[in-house]
């Protein structure tokens, strides 16, 4: 029942394609992550878990420590495998993420999945370990996958540097018939130093072992042990929810091409709110859009939610063309606000050119309910707008002449 904030560092390097852990190293890791998140949240509802990836283009925080399991499960979808793992950077970013946790009373813990060779030397790992100990951060290491020379030594040295009173652990999982998650379940990483979480672990183990010893639903008598039965039922439901989300994602991928731009703006709004309600489906959308543009947008959105004001202007500009297409009045209002904030004259002229294009505007107006383009008042407005834009062009021309 220890109140804890955990950051899980996932290895999504090229070495994770290997299938020696079924179905693939990466998938085994993902399953283990899901189970760990469940166990942590169950042992104490105020616990928070965050996830980051260490390989790929660089260390990337997928979700900051949260107690919302759905968010964590969702962010595990659509992860790409590639690149090399950067253990030192990963641990340091995890430490930073924990430092900025919302509830300062939570203990700090980092869980690292080390599946690929480690390029750092022992000394630097020891220094990192000491820094973690100094800031009272506990570290759990899961050593699996590649076993190249010195890797075990380095990890043991790192653990020795961090370990303070046996709060940090290391687990070696070798390839074999047992799934990674099953092996982890019996370790202190899962059981949380031998208290609370063990109930969940036992329940999950019973379910996984496909035990049907007695005639009861989960192999456990609800009368004898109601808590255990409840835990088993919850884990089954979570599994079902996950599979439903996967099925929904598959269905969405089919209709993804049709939606195009709308989905883009809706996913932006989804990522901008901190805890989006119905986060699973919208977050699925977010992960489905894998084109480069969207990745860049995603980075911006994530950066925004981490309070970096620099990227906000880009997002603002992106949204405007979508909205302008629907409502010329709104577009005018936006145009004015853009005038105030950025003083970007180029977008203005784009706007006014759009509006000046009479045929375009009249087609828009025709689509609006209750507006008759032949109405004299509407025609007046159109005429005035056109003259306004002409005047602006004239001003521009005179300005340029003066220069």
């Amino acid at each position, binding site marked *: 029942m220890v109140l804890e904030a955990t950051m899980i560092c996932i290895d999504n390097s090229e070495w994770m394609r290997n299938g020696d852990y079924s179905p693939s190293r990466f998938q085994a890791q993902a399953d283990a992550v899901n189970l760990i998140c469940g166990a942590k949240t169950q042992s104490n509802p105020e616990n928070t878990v965050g996830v980051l990836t260490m390989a790929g283009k660089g260390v990337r925080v997928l979700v900051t420590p949260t107690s919302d399991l759905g968010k964590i499960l969702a962010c595990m979808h659509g992860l790409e495998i590639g690149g090399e793992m950067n253990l030192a950077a990963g641990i340091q970013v995890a430490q930073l993420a924990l430092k900025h946790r919302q509830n*300062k009373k939570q203990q700090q813990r980092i869980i690292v999945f080390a599946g690929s060779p480690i390029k750092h030397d022992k000394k630097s790992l020891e220094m990192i370990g*000491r*820094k973690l*100990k*100094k800031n*009272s951060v506990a570290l759990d290491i899961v050593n699996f996958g590649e076993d190249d020379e010195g890797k075990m030594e380095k990890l043991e040295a790192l653990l020795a540097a961090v370990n*303070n009173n046996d709060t940090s652990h290391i687990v070696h999982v070798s390839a074999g018939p047992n799934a990674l998650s099953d092996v982890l379940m019996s370790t202190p990483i899962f059981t949380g130093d031998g208290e609370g979480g063990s109930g969940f672990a036992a329940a999950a183990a019973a379910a996984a072992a496909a035990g049907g010893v007695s005639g009861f639903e989960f192999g456990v008598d609800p009368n004898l042990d109601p808590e255990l039965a409840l835990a088993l039922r919850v884990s089954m439901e979570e599994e079902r929810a996950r599979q439903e989300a996967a099925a929904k994602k598959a269905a969405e991928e089919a209709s993804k091409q049709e939606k195009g731009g709308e989905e883009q703006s809706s996913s932006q709004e989804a990522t901008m709110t901190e805890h989006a309600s119905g986060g699973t489906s919208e977050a699925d959308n977010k992960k489905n859009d894998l084109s480069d543009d969207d990745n860049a947008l995603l980075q911006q959105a994530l950066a925004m939610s981490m309070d970096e004001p620099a990227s906000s202007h880009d997002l603002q500009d992106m949204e405007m063309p979508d909205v302008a297409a629907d409502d010329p009045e709104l577009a005018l209002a936006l145009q004015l606000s853009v005038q105030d904030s950025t003083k970007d004259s180029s977008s203005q002229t784009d706007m006014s050119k759009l509006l000046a294009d009479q045929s375009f505007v009249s087609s828009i107006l025709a689509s609006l309910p209750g507006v008759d383009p032949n109405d004299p008042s509407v025609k007046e407005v159109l005429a005035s707008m056109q003259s306004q834009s002409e005047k602006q062009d004239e001003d521009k021309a005179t300005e340029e002449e003066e220069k």
Partner: protein
Amino acid sequence: MSAAESTTAIQRSQVDLLDFIDWSGVECLNQSSSHSLSNALKQGYREDEGLNLESDADEQLLIYVPFTQVIKLHAIVIKGSEEEGPKTVKLFTNKEHMGFSNVNDFPPSDTAVLSPDNLKGRPVVLKYVKFQNVRSLTIFIEDNQSDSETTKIQMIALYGSTVETTDMKGLKKIEEH
């Protein structure tokens, strides 16, 4: 002479603030598990010379002491051994949850460089104006006397007065008239 003066100064108006420490919020970063903060702060433990607060991974320590009420801090006594006792001590008031990384971001309310005299028990008198309204105190021990790997502190005592208590005394005087 000056030593005697400062000790009488303590007896006169100041009180050992041990009773006003909010023990549930006391934290210490980088302490060794066998030699913890209670050895230096708590009554009985701190008098015992065998029980020390010792640092763990390196020689720095960050101690956070919240109080149950607002106090004025007058002086601080830090006792330790001549070699491994602390040297540079920085004090911060009313800053919660500081870490080693942001300890250099704020100017300290006061800095004290301890001499061997101080380590024997001579109190360090602090800048009075900076410690008028203290809800919590953060003590950052930057290094020790001989730059050894760990810092050992035998006792930390805080002397000052509480804000409410002073008011009560004032009321009593009026009644006498």
